[in-house]
């Protein structure tokens, strides 16, 4: 196939981006509402993903005792991808009960949505564990959640719902990014049947917040210049771009909710 490159229309980020500000992007996204302030928009324009890419592993775990913690090693094959998807689903499945348990969500419809999302994520976990069988890399109990980091995301309604949006949007980009690397046709169909539900989640929670149901470019955790070109024929609001597993892991790390070290050829 010939190269299909759609001209980028977005602002091109170039060198001299500030480092260490990936968390600033997250902070902005966590405070999102229907009418973002100009200040926040400016802030997004400044953030970059590059610095976070260097860390690879969540910083939080560096302060944790490593001995008893399971390292998650994802290989660059179908089973590695399914295990990687399982990790994301586990994090989502852990987040919603915590969100509901925080007492900060009091609106009946919002509670209804978060309950449904939690049950869907639990169903995804169960499905992936069944598919993986003996090839599952970790049990739920092997995951060490960073309770301090998690609690920081549960301090108020907006933060909770915006975190849900971040997790769901990230899930969409992650599944999309892994799709072309899968080789088993049943796996890619299964991933497809899950990813569109994640997209519905993202849109639903975005709507609860009065945000757009699609994701504007300036809300993406991976900016255009950092997107892997050969994975992304299209870019912009009308598309959910493909993130590499490495990019996804860096984004997960920035949320500071997981302590386990992560490595392996899939995320290298």
């Amino acid at each position: 196939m010939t190269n299909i490159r759609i001209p980028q229309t977005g602002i091109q980020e170039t060198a001299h981006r500030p480092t260490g500000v990936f968390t600033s992007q997250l902070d902005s996204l966590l405070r999102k509402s229907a009418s973002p302030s100009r200040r926040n928009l400016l802030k997004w324009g400044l953030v970059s993903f590059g610095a976070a890419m260097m860390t690879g592993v969540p910083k939080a775990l560096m302060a944790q005792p490593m001995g008893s913690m399971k390292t998650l090693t994802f290989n660059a094959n179908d089973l590695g991808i399914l295990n990687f998807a399982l990790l994301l689903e586990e994090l989502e499945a852990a987040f919603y009960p915590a969100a509901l348990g925080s007492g900060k969500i009091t609106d009946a419809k919002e509670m209804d949505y978060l309950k449904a999302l939690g049950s869907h994520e639990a169903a995804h976990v169960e499905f992936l564990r069944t598919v993986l069988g003996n090839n599952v890399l970790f049990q739920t109990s092997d995951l060490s959640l960073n309770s301090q980091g998690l609690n920081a995301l549960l301090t108020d309604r907006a933060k909770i719902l915006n975190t849900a949006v971040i997790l769901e949007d990230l899930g969409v980009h992650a599944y999309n990014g892994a799709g072309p690397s899968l080789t088993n046709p049943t796996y890619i169909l299964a991933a497809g049947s899950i990813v569109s539900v994640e997209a519905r989640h993202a849109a639903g929670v975005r709507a609860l917040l009065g945000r757009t149901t699609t994701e504007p470019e300036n809300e993406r955790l991976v900016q255009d210049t950092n997107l892997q070109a050969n994975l992304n024929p299209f870019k912009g609001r009308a598309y959910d771009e493909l993130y590499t597993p490495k990019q996804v892991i860096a984004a997960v790390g920035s949320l500071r909710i997981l302590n386990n070290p992560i490595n392996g050829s899939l995320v290298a």
Partner: protein
Amino acid sequence: MKLFFNAIAQLPDHRFSKNVYQQLSHACLQLLASAKVVALILPLLFFSTVFVPPAPAYAQGATLTPRQVVEYALTLEKLEADFYRRAIAATQGGPLAGVPDMAKTVLVAYGQDEAQHVTDLSAVLRSLGGNPDAIAIPANPNYSAILGRDPFANPTDLLLAGQYVEDLGVAAYKGQVQNLLAAGDAGKTVLAGALEIHTVEARHAAGVRYLRQMLLNADVRPWVRNSSEVIYNENRGGSPIPFGSEAFDGYATREEVLALVGPILTTAQAPQPTPSMTPNRPTSNAPRALW
């Protein structure tokens, strides 16, 4: 606004959706007979592939080349873009003038997305040696085929039709991922593009569903809770994938989608003809490129 809520009171949407679904599901069952045989043996293939290199386990209808997938997708996107254009026109002083701004904003945004898909898929098709201009839809598509009545006559019908169209779009893209994967390297770029579009259609479907819940008090959520909410075969049995669960979206093959879309691709007559929801092969009014 008043007109809007009058329309709601007059048209309980679920009554129609079930009728449409029943008609469609009968027709779909026949089409699916062959697919189901394949689906029955899928679990065996599936679990046998966990420890060995995966054997092909295709359950998604006809094998299409990447170019054929793009031609098919472009047809659907042209229809969707045209659907939103007409919806937006009807909100500008027409019968949909009473639609709340919240919904108008969404219609405009989604219409732009679909138009972008048309533009970009056209470029892809050209790069594959195809001719996007040959993928034509009628000048006046018969959108009454969706609900059995004009979907642009009132907000309730507009959003219900929009939900059907968007949900079907999600299922249609999902129905091609195995074909694109099977094409190997030749299909990788189209696969990536299809995935990029697939979940945006899901966001659209969710957004329209949210509007129906919020504005019309419809018993619906951004996700599919019941197979009667969609016009394709959502709860496909005999698959290792639990499509019957609301946590898993179903797919539709090209044959199934075109059976549903075929009646829309016929030119609307004036006055509106009695819509036929019997899936049938398109008539001479249909674009030739696809069949």
